[in-house]
């Protein structure tokens, strides 16, 4: 409560949040706030994919065989990340070492 009253809460794009809510995109909605917080004022936020997936509550994906893990990432996480591009991040890159980098807008 004190944080709210002191203005410490991150200001989000309310219209975009409600857009995601109305489109029932809860993962994208979560990623929007999550990535904004993680990037902060940095130019880039880097994270191992396994750690990132764990951060967003999808740690079960890490326990899947590699092929199924990639399939789940492509089907669930990457579309949600694409939705928040230009709102929370400018773009993201995944390298061959299993690292994902998010770039500041």
């Amino acid at each position: 409560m004190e944080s709210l009253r002191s203005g410490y809460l991150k200001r989000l794009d309310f219209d975009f949040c409600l857009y995601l809510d109305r489109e029932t995109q809860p993962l994208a909605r979560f990623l929007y706030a999550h990535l904004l917080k993680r990037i902060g004022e940095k130019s880039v936020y880097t994270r191992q994919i396994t750690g990132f997936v764990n951060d967003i509550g999808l740690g079960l994906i890490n326990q899947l065989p590699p092929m199924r893990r990639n399939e789940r990432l492509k089907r669930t996480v990457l579309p949600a990340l694409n939705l928040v591009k230009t709102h929370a991040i400018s773009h993201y890159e995944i390298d061959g070492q299993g690292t994902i980098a998010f770039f500041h807008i």
Partner: protein
Amino acid sequence: MTSQEVNAAIRDSLGLPPKPEPQPTVPQEGHICDFPIWSYSKKRSTITKLIITYEDGSFFQVEAPKGFPGVSSPGYLDVILFYGQRDLFHQNFVELSAYSVMKHLHIDPEHGSSYANFVRDMERNFALMIKTDRFIDFPGTGYHEACQDEEGHLSLLLQSGIFGKPALRIPQATGL
């Protein structure tokens, strides 16, 4: 030229020293404790616990004895926060009708089980319990819980070293 380079050039033209690079985020990230509500899980009625462990050995755990809330739940909370936050500057609770919450989300409260789903998801939200040691300055475990007073108001209590007061108060079935 990126926006950061433009800002650096502006600072340079004004004779200001370069803005220092932000420090590594390890200390600050200790304060970050995101809340992946799992509303995107198809198993939200059967999964009742979510544990996230971090590389520094800290953890964040959500227990949901009534199951995790549904896909509309983040929207309910967004509406309550965005339309109700003004109230929090002069009182310790937010009062909004369920009808107005659903209206902002373009959900027809008269349709099917919309209202029942709203009540179910809010009850699941109120039943959530959070445990974490991610607050560096406040190592005690924080938690929140729900209670109901004699007037039928549900209150979400956030209690830890940081939060100490009722934060949310929703009259049941108001406006319907």
